């Protein structure tokens, strides 16, 4: 259901980007990069905004003609960004939350791998497969 999934590290460098359509990859890199600004804004504006200060899920960040972009920040300052098609109106908020929870879970597994070095991009097969399944719309 998602068209693109990205994991961005603490220093805002991309750790992992995966798209359904390889031709659109550069386009998605740009979109995700733009969405990072909105993420930062939401993270810093939390002192003034009422409620939801403790939430990890950031909700809809940005919406263009063909795509919707959702964001999620972990306590360890890792950002997850999911891009979906605007035409896909059947995607509910709860489903996106579930996708982020699963992403966070697989990400925690990748980090716990003793051979994983925190400064390098993610190249785990299990992570890849979960992301592919998520983009295809399976559980």
């Amino acid at each position, binding site marked *: 259901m998602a068209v693109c999934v990205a994991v961005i590290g*603490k220093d805002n460098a991309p750790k992992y980007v995966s798209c359904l359509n390889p031709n659109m990859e550069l386009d998605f890199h740009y979109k995700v990069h733009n969405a990072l600004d909105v993420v930062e804004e939401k993270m810093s504006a*939390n002192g003034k905004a009422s409620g939801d*200060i*403790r*939430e*990890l899920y950031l909700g809809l960040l940005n919406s263009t003609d063909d795509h919707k972009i959702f964001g999620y*920040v*972990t*306590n*360890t*300052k890792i950002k997850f960004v999911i891009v979906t098609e605007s035409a896909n109106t059947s995607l509910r908020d709860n489903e996106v939350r579930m996708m982020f929870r699963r992403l*966070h*879970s697989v*990400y*925690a597994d990748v*980090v*716990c791998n*003793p051979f994983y070095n*925190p400064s390098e991009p993610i190249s785990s097969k299990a992570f890849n497969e979960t992301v592919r399944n998520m983009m295809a719309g399976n559980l």
Partner: protein
Amino acid sequence: MADPVFFELLHAQIVKYVEERQTKDTDLSSLDTIGFTCGYKIIERLTRDWPKFKDELEIVKFICTDFWMAVYGKQIDNLRTNNQGLYVLQDNMFRCLNKIAIGKEHLQVAPLYYTFTCGLVRGSLANLGVHCVVNAEVQNMPSVKFHIQVNRL
């Protein structure tokens, strides 16, 4: 949850291994690095479903309560701070030391056993965005005081 005795045995063996291989008398940096990587990774799992932390004090309080409970089965007994980046965490029955001695015996081996935990705390805080230096001191076994000095720019 696994039986705590597994961690105690593994930890004791790691300390023995490092002690046998150290070339200089006080080179415990490899123990500290092992603790650092462990802390870094464990915090990712522990904070998975936790709401966002508001500030540094809340992060340190999390270390004292939930983190210590998950790793050692108890909470930190005393937390003091000078509100300028220095925190002192006191554990009166530190699990890695309470089988060695009670009182002032064997104080010289204590650093071998608290270095891993110093690294653990440093790694956890580093992953949460708090860069710091962690030291410890022991005056009475098995009570240990961990000093966390946060690098404030």
